[in-house]
C-alpha cells in the first residue's frame, strides 16, 4: 500500500493509558464544574493554531507530509512524472506554518502527462502537477492507494477509485462523488495554491 510505511507530520503519538475524561452536556449547559469538565481536553492538549486548521489559501505553498523531508517545502521538481502520488500539506507561504491541523487539508500530489489531462482538469494543473484532497468522498478514509495502470487514486477502505487525469471523477464505487481538487500554479519553481478546493472536502453522512 502506498504511503503505508510513512508517518504523517503532526500525527499524535500512542497514548493507550489515557483514562476517561468525564463530562456531560447538562453540566456544560448549566455551567456546572466547567473547570473540571475534561471531555475535549486531549483535543486542546496541544494548542492548534487556527491557521493550521483553515482550508488552503491562495498563494499557499505545499510541503511534504511524510518521509524524511516531512514539513519541508515541496518544489515542483520533486513531483516526478509517473511516480506514485506524494502526501502533502498546504503551507502558509509567509509564515511557513503547515496547515496540518485538519485531515481535510491533506493532499495527494502527482505529476501527469499534461496531454492526458481532461479539459476540466488541465486548468487546475500546473505543468501536469495536480493536487487532490486525500479524504475520500465516500466515507472519509485517506485515499492512499494508487493504480498506475488507470492513473487511479484508490481508497484502501472500500475500494473506490478516482481518475487523477479527470478531476478525480469516480472510476469505481462505492463513492459517487469526485475527490476535491486543489488548483495549483507554479511560481519560480514553487508550487502554489491557485484557488480554493473545487468542492467540499470529505463526505456528507447520508
Amino acid at each position, binding site marked *: 500500500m502506498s504511503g503505508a510505511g510513512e508517518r504523517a507530520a503532526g500525527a499524535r503519538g*500512542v497514548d*493507550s493509558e489515557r483514562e476517561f475524561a468525564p463530562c456531560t*452536556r447538562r453540566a456544560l449547559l448549566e455551567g456546572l464544574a466547567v473547570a473540571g*469538565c475534561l471531555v475535549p481536553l486531549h483535543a486542546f492538549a496541544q494548542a492548534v493554531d487556527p491557521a493550521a486548521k483553515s482550508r488552503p489559501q491562495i498563494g499557499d505553498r505545499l510541503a511534504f507530509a511524510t518521509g524524511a523531508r516531512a514539513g519541508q517545502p515541496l518544489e515542483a521538481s520533486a513531483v516526478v512524472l509517473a511516480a506514485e502520488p506524494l502526501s502533502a500539506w498546504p503551507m502558509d507561504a509567509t509564515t511557513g506554518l503547515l496547515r496540518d491541523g485538519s485531515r481535510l487539508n491533506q493532499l495527494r500530489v502527482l505529476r501527469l502527462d499534461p496531454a492526458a489531462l481532461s479539459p476540466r482538469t488541465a486548468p487546475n494543473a500546473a505543468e501536469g502537477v495536480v493536487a487532490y484532497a486525500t*479524504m*475520500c468522498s465516500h466515507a472519509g478514509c485517506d485515499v492512499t492507494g494508487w493504480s498506475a495502470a488507470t492513473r487511479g487514486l*484508490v481508497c484502501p477502505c472500500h475500494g473506490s477509485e478516482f481518475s487523477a487525469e479527470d478531476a478525480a471523477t469516480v472510476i469505481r464505487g462505492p463513492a459517487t462523488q469526485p475527490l476535491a481538487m486543489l488548483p495549483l500554479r507554479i511560481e519560480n519553481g514553487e508550487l502554489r495554491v491557485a484557488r480554493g478546493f473545487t468542492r467540499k472536502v470529505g463526505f456528507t*453522512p447520508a
Partner: protein
Amino acid sequence: MLRTTALVLAALATGGVAGPSAAQEARPYTPVTQARLENPEPRNWLMFRRTYDANGYSPLDQINAKNVKRLAPAWTFATGLREGHQSPPIVNDGVMFFTTPHNHVIALDARTGEQLWRYERALPEDLQELHPTNRGVALFGDRVYMATADAFLVALDARTGKVVWEQQIEDYTRGYYCTLAPLAVRGKILVGVSGGELGIRGFIAAFDAGTGKPAWKTFTIPAPGEPGSETWSGDAWKTGGVPVWVTGAYDPRLGLTYWGTGNAGPWAGDVRPGDNLYANSVLALDIETGRIVAHHQYHWNDSWDWDEVSTPLLLDFERGGRTIHGLVHPGRNGYLWFLERTQEQIGFVDAQPFVRNDVFTRLDPKTGRPEYDLDKKPATGRAATFCPSLSGGTNWMPSVYSPKTRLLYIPANENLCAMMNPQPVEYQAGQLFTGTQLAMGETLDFFLHAGAEDHIGEIQAWSIDGSPKEVWKKTFKSHNWGPLLVTGGGVLFSGGTNDRFFRAHDARTGELLWQQRTSSGVVGVPTTYEIDGVQYVAVLSGWGVDAERIQGAINGKRPPEQQVQVPQGGVLWVFALPK
C-alpha cells in the same frame, strides 16, 4: 480554559436535532427497569437480543408456521439514508426506537408508524467511517442510549429525543468508533469499541446510566505485568486492536457479562508473536467491577481477520446425561463452539466445523486449542489462501436459539475463501494498520471455492444436545448477511441475500413459508412485538457496509451476467397478519 469552554458549548449547541411532535407530548412511556430487562414481557423487545441470554427468541405465536403465508406489510418508514441499516427495531410498550448509519435515532409509534421524534448526531467533518452502520439502542429508565461513530455515548430522553448527557468513550481521531448497541445492566450502560483496523487498543467500558460517569474500563489487551501480557511481544499491545464490535450477553445468576472480541492487528500474526490474549476470545466480566473473571480464546495469534464478536448465546445443553450451563458460539473461524460457564471459568466442551475450515488441523480435546496448517497462515511478505474467507463462516449477524425446537440457527457462508498477502506497516494514529489494503487487490482478495456455483449463503439448524448435528440447511446463491429471528410460533425470519428478500421459514423443517421482496437488501436484525393483541414483525432493509464489500468481491469473480448490484437506502418494514 475559557476559550476552550466556549468552543465546546458552541459544538454542543449544534450537536443534535430533536423534533418531538405534538402527539408525543402526552404519550405515556413505561420506564425500563432491571426486573423488566431480566424478565421482559412477551409483547416487548427491550434490548439488542431481546433477552440477556442473547437467544434472539420471542415467545409470540400469533404469527405461526400455518398462517405466516398471509403476512403482509402494515406500514413502512424511509430513513432517507444510505449504507448498512443493521439496527433491531427495539420496542417498549408501543414505542419503537431504531438507529441508522451516521447515528440517527428514530422513535416511532410502533403500531401506526407515526414519527415521535428523531435525533441526528452532528458528526465531525474530519471523521472517517470505515463501517458506516449502527446496531441499535439500549433502554434504561426513561432514557435511550446510543454509542456513536465518533466514540461518544449519548443518553436521550425517551419521550422527547432531547440529549440528557453525552460522554466521550475515546478519541475518534485515533481510530476509535462504536457500531454496537449498548447493553444496560443494573444501572450501568456497557459499550465496546470498534477500530481493530486502525491500531486501537480495545476495551469494554461501563458508564452510570443516570449521569454518564465512567464506572469501569477493561482493556481487551493486558498491559505489561498484567495476566496475559506474556502472550504479547514488545509494544504490540499498545496498538494491538482486539476491538469489541457487538453487544455482549449477561447472566443475572452469576453477575457476569460475556463479550466476544475481535482479532489483533496488524493482521499478520508474525508481527505480534504470541497467543495475543484476549483476541478472538469470549470474556466473562464481573458486572460491578469489570474484572476479567474468565476467558476462552477460540484461536491464537490470528492471521485471518476472524473476529469472534457475535453475541455469545447463553443456553443449557446436555452431554452424557448432564445438563451444562453453556455458552454457544458459531465462530467466524467456521467452528461451532460449545463451552461451559461457571462462576469461576469458561470451560471447553466440544467444537466442530460448520463450514469448510482448511486451517485448523486438530483441536486439543481438553482445551479446544487448535493446531494450524502453517501453509494456510499468512505472514508478512508471505501470501496464503484460506477458508473460510476473512468474512468468516458467519460474522456479526446474530445466531438464534429456540427453546421450542431446541435448535440453534446459524446464518452461514460456505465456498467463499480468501488470499491475504500482508505487507510491513507502520503505526500512524487513526490510519489503517492492517498490513493489507481492505479493498480487493494484490494484498487481499476473495476467491470462490468449488461449490460456489451452487451456493454461498446458508441458514443452518443444529441440535445442541448429545452429539450436535446439522438438522436442516437452506442454501442461497447469494452470500448471507442476515441476522435471524425465531419465534414461539415456530417461524424463523431472515433476510441477508442480495435478491432483497425477507423470508419466513418453518423453524422445524426449514421449509420456505413466505417471502417479501423489499426495497433494498436486508441486513437488519428482525424483531417482533405485540400491541393491542396484534403481533408485528419489523426489520430494516438497507444494504451496505460489509454485505456490499463482499458482494463487490464476489462480483469481481463472476462474469458480468452474474454480477449483482443491490440498491441502497434504508426502509423500515413492519408486517402483520391482515385482519
